[in-house]
């Protein structure tokens, strides 16, 4: 399984993501600078977290309109898997590759802590190492993770099983509708996830609950 991590200026969890992919998948991902002419032929494209372009306009707004996103969109349409974490999720919604938006946290403050996630759909490439209904631990670190979509969109992503992860046990940290923490596109090959599974993959992180997402994709 070949993977690539796409880097925009201002992203800052790229190194965490690269380390996680290498530790779990055994081989390092290709690292693609947003201006590189070519995106290598890979099975998984990852957009990591951070503050691309300093969150100018809105988080993810500028990165979403950069030329490499057209390439990523085209690959996704061909079935290549795309994972966007945190700012990566924001970029994917801004690019129109995932429905809904991520608004400022309800508290209006940045928040970094551990929360609980419930696996709402274990039947995706991103979640098949977990069981439906399983509760896992996961860290979060964001200022704009408050998921919102209009009623019709919300109904349709719920009906289609596109909601893959929800904040569980009262740990919704940001006011997201339906406790949504991670969703896929209708085809199920693009996942946006607000929490940071890459920071909980080894005993020294205090747990390995985040491994499953990568293990399912990389092996």
């Amino acid at each position: 399984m070949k993977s690539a991590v796409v880097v925009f200026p201002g992203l800052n969890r790229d190194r965490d993501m690269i380390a996680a992919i290498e530790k779990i998948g055994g081989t390092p991902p290709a690292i693609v600078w947003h201006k590189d002419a070519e995106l290598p032929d890979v099975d998984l494209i990852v957009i990591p977290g951070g503050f691309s372009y300093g969150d100018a306009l809105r988080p993810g707004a500028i990165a979403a309109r950069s030329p490499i996103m057209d390439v990523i969109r085209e690959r996704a349409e061909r079935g290549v898997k795309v994972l966007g974490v945190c700012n990566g999720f924001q970029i994917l919604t801004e690019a129109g590759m995932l429905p809904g938006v991520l608004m400022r946290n309800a508290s209006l403050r940045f928040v970094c802590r551990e929360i609980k996630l419930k696996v709402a759909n274990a039947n995706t490439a991103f979640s098949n190492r977990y069981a439906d209904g399983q509760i896992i631990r996961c860290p979060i670190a964001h200022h704009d993770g408050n998921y919102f979509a209009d009623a019709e969109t919300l109904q349709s992503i719920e009906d289609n099983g596109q909601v893959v992860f929800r904040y569980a046990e009262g740990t919704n940290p940001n006011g997201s509708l339906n406790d949504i923490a991670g969703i896929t596109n209708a085809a199920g090959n693009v996942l946006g996830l607000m929490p940071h599974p890459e920071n909980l993959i080894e005993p020294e992180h205090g747990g390995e609950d985040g491994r499953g997402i990568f293990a399912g994709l990389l092996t």
Partner: protein
Amino acid sequence: MTLRNDIEITPELVADHGLKPEEYQKILDLIGREPTFTELGIFSAMWNEHCSYKSSKKWLRTLPTSGPRVIQGPGENAGVVDIGDGQAIVFKMESHNHPSFIEPYQGAATGVGGILRDVFTMGARPVAAMNALRFGEPDHEKTRHLVSGVVAGVGGYGNSFGVPTVGGEVQFDRRYNGNILVNAFAAGLADTDKIFYSKAKGVGLPVVYLGAKTGRDGVGGATMASAEFGDDIDEKRPTVQVGDPFTEKRLLEACLELMATGAVIAIQDMGAAGLTCSAVEMGAKGDLGIELDLDTVPVREERMTAYEMMLSESQERMLMVLHPEKEAEARAIFEKWGLDFATVGKTTDDLRFRVFFEGEEVANLPIKELGDEAPEYDRPWVEPAKPAPLGELPHMDVADALLGLIGSANHASRRWVYEQYDTLIQGNSLQTPGGDAGVIRVEGHAQKALAFSSDVNPHYCEADPFEGGKQAVTECWRNLVATGAEPLAATDNLNFGNPERPEIMGQIVMAIKGIGEACRALDFPIVSGNVSLYNETNGQGILPTPTIAGVGLIEDRAKSARNAFAAEGQPILLVGAPAIWGSHMGQSAYLRDLFGRNEGPPPAVNLDHEKKAGQFVLGLIREGIATAVHDLSDGGLALGLAEMAIKGGLGATVNQLNDIDPVPTFFGEDQGRYLVTVNLDPQGDEMRALWKRAEAAGLFAPWIGVTGGDALKLGEARAISVEQLQEAYEGWFPGYMGATVN
């Protein structure tokens, strides 16, 4: 606004630049003529307290700054300490007090930005940050606004930049009502053979400007930071800079990429007094002159004058001396990251600092006298009076006192604050805020980890600056030890009032003497630091606050310790205790936070005892005997036990001594003590062996209780459930800031 260079120099103008008449006379003697307006600005920037340390230098020189692991002590952008395997930790702490009071978000944010830049200027990638914050009393009208803005600013910058905040301090006291303290610490990792310095080498080499463009923000900031506040404080807002962490993050990546090419001869970040300070320092240190052509400086505002460009404190800028043959390669890296790159001058051999603007020479000054030979004062000082002995001790029920303290402004959980900081980024955090010290693993190394702690008790320092200075160093050292780290070195951030008052100068002198004595005894050198004076408003000074931030090395992170009770039924030892466990109530949290009394002398620090107790505790951790360790500081045994219980979600039953007043036992602040839980049978041979070892080391390590249950019971006092402790502990901050814990 356009300022000409031929403005007449009047005594008022000199005074407005923070220069005393005798300092102006020194300028006249030095250059043999009246300075130009731009030159006056340059002198003002270089000779202010913030940049020149003119009041404190004499005393700072007495601090121990070297040791077998010290690669670079004070005088560079940051200190550098060897951690083995060809790697070094590069760190410093710096204040941004005055700007943060005026404009809390940007003041704090640019404080974080400045200290991160100090670290990566030396070639190190930042891996940990801390911040020590001190605010006015909670009820003061400005305090909530300042807390909210400062915390958001620290987070806003550090989170975007991408460095984990692993520790810090937050305290409240009315003495900070008019002058809050924002002390920011950063540490980075570098290879010992790839450290970069600010000393320029070689004549005729290009001086290159990198990073963000220059604007009018922050003009005169360093001078502002060297003056007391009066009622015109709000007029100073334009002197605060505006931070852009996105640019800083790109600057970090671009600088590290550039350094890897071998193009960099010398590098200096533009912090206080911007272009002036960075150019003069690079030249003066290298015994070279510098010539600048301001027409080539990238600017973001029109019609800027030479004066404004030289004094601008626009953020995220660097100055470098480069190998000329690598210039094209260097330019390409900065263009890739979308940053400015401009050759703005050259090094010369005439030891002059010459500045050209629109074809005219606007400054021509002797560079050494501007920089490392700036004026220095031996200010008059008086030794502070020793505090009166403590009178009769007021009494309170032990359980009520504990609940009162743990739910009070200065002892409650700081979760509301640190959850606004990214504590996990980089994936190496082993202990995040809430422990005795923050701990990160050394990426790429199988066993090593680094510990960081920042400490000072300003009330101890006010009562007795010498003992208080000693105590600040020692508490920091103990906090590192409590995680299992060997303390390596420290940085000091000395915050005081107006040094022109002999009683304040006395605090500075005595605190530095105390810090020096403790650092020498504990082999804990000061490798970098910062001095912030004139923290006064309308003649009222802050509490003397010499913040000490230390770094420790854990050789094997599998053998480290946390401050949470680990398991049921484990004996609790009070390592380093005096015969009656605790006795010292002067300047205690018990008196101050429960009775409003700041009385008596602070606890004395016995450095010989500290060393023994620290070594003993390190031994217990490394041998895997200790299951939890916590340094005792303010609030004494009761608060220490409560914190371990809350963090472990586990209660304990603790004895009290017969016929001894339980208040000093549980709330005394005697130094040199650690709470240690062990996985040994209290009646077994191993425990007897442990006590023998303690005795041989000259230490008392009484077995004071046992972990277990869901409540904490202190002697005869009623048991308090861990849940109730937790509620009190976690409740204060969110309640105060008027928000729920979400």
